[in-house]
């Protein structure tokens, strides 16, 4: 048994952390709250240059030949840096959908360009309030054209194509739509974390091309499970960074003649955050292993990791603000960046209730109890 990341993964982590400390400081995230800054686009291109966008994709299609560990390491570091780039939606949902369910032609057409950062893809499942379910998909695919409204769609304003969930005669399917093409209308929309822009995308007889491998709800659910693992790592990275920020401030800030971190109210609060983060880390690691090695264990492991990491991120983010006191509540301080991202991530693939129910369903299926 060996429950630790490989040496290669640790090297990748060090490299990513150094790179992002330089190219993705908090000031860039803050700038992205107002409008996508050019540095964010530059960061995305550099990530492509480093091969990060092809991690886990087939080498034949521009992939980097690395596996789940590398994908998770990158997700965690991007989450820690709150990078304002569509890694989760573009790489872990849209490109993954094409890689898992696309035809050879679709893969050949899109994966190399996506891996190279020459195009980006969005993933459009949600249609407003409600958690993912077959019945929540009301968009329709008929005669190669999609009708329906999708929101929120991460990166929807900027992306070139979208993988869109719709109903055809047989049930839920996924289809590729050219977002710049006819019959597509997009509107930017305000999210709780504006640093990752989202759109409201309406299709009116927009030409669409099915992903042949994505027939039925189970294929879509399987994609959500796969994406939940890097999503959990992104939350874990954010949670770790928020905790570190709180600890550093608690050591430095003085009140009543002492560092505030010497008061048990702060000390025990942060100990509780640490416990939550470490449990989330262990769950995330296990899910990474399941993603790499054991498809049977994946649904339960992915849901457990997602629930655990989202809860830890929210706890770490809110107690980071609280530890900072008044300054933590200002726009110009960094703590709210984590708080916003925590809430965005917690709803990106369905909300907490969805993943807890998915965990229970998997637990009963796995007869793990």
């Amino acid at each position, binding site marked *: 048994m060996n429950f630790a990341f490989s040496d290669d993964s640790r090297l990748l982590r060090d490299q990513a952390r150094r790179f992002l400390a330089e190219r993705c400081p908090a000031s860039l995230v803050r700038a992205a709250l107002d409008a996508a800054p050019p540095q964010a686009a530059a960061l995305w291109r550099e990530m492509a240059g480093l091969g990060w966008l092809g991690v886990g994709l087939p080498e034949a299609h521009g992939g980097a030949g690395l596996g789940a560990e590398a994908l998770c390491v990158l997700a965690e570091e991007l989450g820690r840096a709150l990078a304002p780039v569509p890694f989760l939606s573009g790489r872990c949902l849209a490109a993954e959908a094409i890689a898992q369910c696309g035809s050879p032609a679709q893969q050949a057409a899109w994966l190399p360009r996506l891996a190279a950062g020459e195009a980006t893809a969005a993933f459009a499942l949600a249609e407003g309030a409600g958690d993912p379910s077959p019945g929540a998909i009301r968009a329709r695919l008929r005669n190669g054209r999609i009708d329906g409204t999708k929101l929120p769609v991460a990166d929807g304003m900027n992306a070139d194509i979208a993988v869109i969930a719709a109903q055809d005669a047989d049930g839920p399917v996924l289809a590729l739509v050219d977002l710049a093409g006819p019959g597509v209308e997009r509107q930017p929309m305000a999210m709780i974390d504006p640093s990752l822009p989202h759109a409201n995308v309406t299709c009116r007889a927009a030409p669409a091309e099915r992903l042949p491998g994505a027939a039925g709800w189970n294929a879509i659910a399987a994609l959500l499970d796969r994406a939940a693992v890097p999503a959990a790592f992104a939350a874990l990275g954010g949670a770790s960074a928020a905790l570190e920020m709180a600890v550093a401030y608690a050591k430095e800030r003085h009140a009543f003649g002492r560092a505030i971190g010497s008061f048990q109210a702060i000390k025990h609060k942060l100990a509780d955050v640490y416990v939550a983060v470490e449990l989330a880390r262990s769950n995330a690691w296990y899910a990474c292993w399941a993603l790499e090695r054991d498809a049977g264990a994946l649904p339960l492991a992915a849901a457990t990791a997602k629930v655990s990491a989202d809860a830890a991120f929210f706890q770490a983010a809110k107690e980071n603000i609280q530890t900072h*006191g008044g300054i933590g509540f*200002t726009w110009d301080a960094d703590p709210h960046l984590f*708080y916003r991202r925590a809430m965005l991530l917690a709803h990106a693939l369905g909300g907490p209730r969805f993943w807890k129910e998915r965990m229970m369903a998997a637990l009963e299926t796995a007869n793990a109890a």
Partner: protein
Amino acid sequence: MDFDDTPDEAAFRAEARAFLDANRPRKDRARAAPRYGEVDAAELARAKAWQARKAAAGFAGITWPREWGGRGGSPMQQIIWNQEEAGYDVPYDVFLIGLGMCIPTLMAYAGRPVLERYVRPALRGEEIWCQLFSEPAAGSDVAGLCTRAERNGEDWVVNGQKVWTSGAHFCDFGLLLARSDPAVPKHAGLTAFWIDMKAPGVEVRPIHQMSGGSHFNEVFFTDLRLADRQRLGAPGQGWKVALTTLMNERLAVGEPRRPDIHDLIALARAVAIDGRPAIADPAVRLKIAEWWADSAGLAYTRFRTMTALSRGQTPGPENAIAKVVNAARLQAIAAYGMDLLGQAGAIADPALAPMAGLFQDGLLAAPGQRIAGGTDEILRNIIAERVLGLPAEPRVDKDMPFNRHAPAR
């Protein structure tokens, strides 16, 4: 126990309601939510106009003496007014701190000429007051403040910086706490003053909050000159004056911020889980039930306070209870409301998010509620020490001359 009005109370309630009916529309919960944000010029004008009208009709300063423009009424009348006014769509109350904390402190410490000049205009909403206590290095530890007030002949000269001053950008006057003697222990070297916020040497800079608005400010003093008659209480007695102000803060028991339990119930009726209203889901019901029990408990605790007030008792720690419960619950309810929205939970667009983004706004406002006006941690200290009588922590800073403290960071 009796929840019915006495005949006198009923008469006052009818009078209040008639005035409100004639002057304001009823509040409509289903309409756009109150946004946590700044008070713009138009809202400020509306607030001033409404205060003037209330004052003219005898509904401002209900318990204040008639001598100062008040009604000379009972605490129960004030409570009845608050209950009734809460049902109407009224402007944001920009006078709460001035009338609830600053003027009562003035009444306790200022001379008659000052009161003659300032009390009535404040009551009529013509002049607004703010409270200038907190500093960057003195938040929870208010007595650790550094702003200096130095004697200069007959006058005082003030230099330093305040922060978290609610409404300073639209205020006319303020209550200032400054350090007049750094060579004595921290609580002993403070002096209180009232100041003109428009005087030279006062600069107000709004603070951009994470929730979007700029309700709070930084206030900088550069060689601000104060006449000695602006002093409140003796030199070195400022901490005592500040405690008077902060004690009055407890009287201003507010309604819980929204989204509250009623908003959550409304949301749970509006959104669906598996094709049924969320409120039919046992897990949702359990959550609502637990929050309902706390919300009801707080509402009835307020009745206990009102009864005590109406008997002339001083209010106890109820406000600490309300704030510590409400702020954490606001955060939890807001997050849970977003959870009920599933994939759309993170949408903050008021045109797209249910109830005009009330839950998302509340989530962003909640961290401030847990901090402003006493953090969760300070409030628990207050309950533990002042109510339960548990011993204070050993203090390394309390008896040491302030200028020998390690620099606060």
